[in-house]
């Protein structure tokens, strides 16, 4: 399906933050990452500050896409959950909608059952917010005028 741009306004970010905070409290997971299926981070919440979230998002989106492709080979639309169990920390990735997924990192303080239960609720709620955000037109304020040459200057300088 065709991908669409995602524009997260302040009020969307606040609602998503509230949903993810509830999810973390209810499930006792450590960290929640809301990820676009192309691999971009949409929102995050939790205590794992040192986490390389950008890399995790790219890898999780790729892993989830791979399992979806395998599911289709088996005649399934997709596998709705991906779970990796570690010695200390585990990952749970689940579908939010056609364009995003929710990744939860959790440890021994909770169980896969709890995470799965509350991830489903959180996914539905956050999916509704994203649906509204995507349906909204792009704000004119910053984006209406074409970039000027001075704004679109060279981003990186090659080493000399």
């Amino acid at each position, binding site marked *: *399906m*065709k*991908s*669409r*741009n*995602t*524009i*997260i*306004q*302040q009020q*969307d*970010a*606040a609602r998503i933050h509230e949903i993810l905070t509830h999810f973390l409290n209810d499930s006792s997971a450590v960290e929640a990452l809301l990820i*676009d*299926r*192309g*691999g*971009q*981070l*949409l929102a995050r919440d939790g205590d794992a500050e040192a986490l*390389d979230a*950008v*890399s995790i998002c*790219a*890898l999780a989106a*790729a892993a989830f*896409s*791979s399992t979806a*492709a395998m599911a289709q080979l088996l005649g399934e639309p997709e596998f709705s959950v991906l779970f990796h169990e570690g010695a200390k920390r585990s990952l749970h990735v689940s579908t939010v909608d056609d364009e995003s997924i929710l990744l939860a990192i959790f440890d021994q303080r909770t169980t896969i059952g709890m995470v799965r239960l509350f991830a489903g609720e959180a996914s539905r709620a956050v999916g509704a917010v994203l649906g509204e955000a995507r349906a909204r037109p*792009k704000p004119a304020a*910053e*984006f*209406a*005028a*074409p*970039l000027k040459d001075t*704004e*679109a*200057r*060279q*981003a*990186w*300088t*090659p*080493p000399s």
Partner: protein
Amino acid sequence: MSVINYANRVIDFKIVYYGPGLAGKTANLQYIYRSLPNANRGNMISLATGDDRTIYFDFLPVSALTVRGFQTRFQLYTVPGQVQYNATRRLVLRGADGLVFVADSQFERLRENVESFRNLEANLHEYESTLDEIPYVLQYNKRDLPNQAPVTYLEFVLNRRGARVPYFEASAIEGKGVFDTLNTVSRMALASEFGVGRERRHEVS
């Protein structure tokens, strides 16, 4: 596709390096990784086989300019070039905001370049997209090798769609042309977010 986040004033873009196997896609990202200061780049991830052939993708996040109050960030991906990895190639392509087609300039690789370019168009079609909708540039890599095809010939073979796109001669392993390519495709992706994407119609001299 791009993510515009008003909460932290960031715009994220996804740029995909596409092309036949051994054309130098990974070499582009490795050079960028080595050249940028830590503050402007994250970790580089390479999902490769034991003999360093890309099996899924390479990934390198880089940060760039602040434009109209938004910091811009670009996530650079490569696809596996080998023909048999088309399923994973298609997955990596999902949501791309800009494309770099890395062609191997050697005469004996011309056919693989053309097949890879057609494969790119076919995979975009799977996402209901086309090269008319996504900014892209061509990079003619391996210009340091002796058996290179003339640029005019590569242009004739690869840059022949309705609107010609910018192209760059490169030797990615030495870094030549790598940043010209990256700067141009990122500027085109950025421009496409604001007003009309002017550089999509960029005239090539």
